[in-house]
């Protein structure tokens, strides 16, 4: 079996964004649980934060191919 060590590196690099996305949605769920009427206000903010955190993982994926 042969492969590329940078695959392992990319796997390690996604830990950071993964934790970030988890924290963002944890905070979102907390916020909605405490104040359900704030849901519509919090949803775009949570998804925006998720998209920005996820961008780091996507960078890693694309840099891998360049």
């Amino acid at each position, binding site marked *: 079996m042969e492969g590329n060590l940078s695959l392992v590196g990319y796997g390690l690099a996604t830990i950071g964004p993964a934790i970030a996305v988890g924290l963002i949605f944890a905070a979102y769920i907390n916020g909605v649980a405490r104040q359900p009427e704030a849901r519509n206000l919090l949803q775009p903010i949570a998804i925006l934060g998720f998209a*920005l955190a996820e*961008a780091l993982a996507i960078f890693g994926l694309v840099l891998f191919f360049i």
Partner: protein
Amino acid sequence: MILTALAAGTTTAVGAAEGGEGFETPTPDIFWLPLIGEGNWAITEQMVWGGVSVVLLSVVMVALSKKAAIVPSKGQFFMENFYNLARNGIARDMIGTKHFLKFVPLLFSLFSLILLNNWFGILPPVMNPTFGRIGFPIALTLVVYVVYHWIGIKKMGVGGYFKHLVPPGLPGWIKPAIFVLEFITYFITRPLTLALRLFGNMFAGHMLIVLFVSAGAFFLTQGIAFKLLSVPTFIMAAAMFVFEALVQFLQAYVFTLLAASYIAGALADDH
């Protein structure tokens, strides 16, 4: 961008010992589907499906909105809810009630086009997300890029637009550093992440689905132990389809949301 760099060197031979043909993991080559011609000017399958999606969306939307009535039919009700998601949920919430109407056509077109093309990735006759080729996200990002700079410059003038990059009330010595950072954000990071996020998600999701399905099909050709292993593999493939449906909707939503927030940022009076 060369997406075929992986083609050599990452294939694994799982089943070679069993006597069958070895299993080849899918490579980024699976996205290269030329129909007519070859090289840089080839017409690919994704281009055709992109065109089909535009025609499909136009026909369906015209048909559903033609006979608009006070008491809506099922189709009109569906269409209005879908339109409201982009109009109220994205454009109005992000841009604000004052300026948002002007950008609703752009944002709604982006949302519906990306959504349909993403869902092509799991719909049986196509099974290939159009935005898995980097050129398509780049084209949409270019439109957004030009629009948000254009409206910013039109509102504040070229000098005013660059001045607006630095938030007011900062001490003088830090302003150059903030300006450089904000400049990079506005002109390089934003379009780059906007295009790459959509591309990366579609690309990775499609690769994952192909990997599970082809691995499951390969296990069926092997010995009895591998045949049993193909059952959980196919279950995982089905789960990935459901997960991808969610991700593809979310990415269409995120792309439109970010485009709206960039427009809102260029229109904002101060930071």
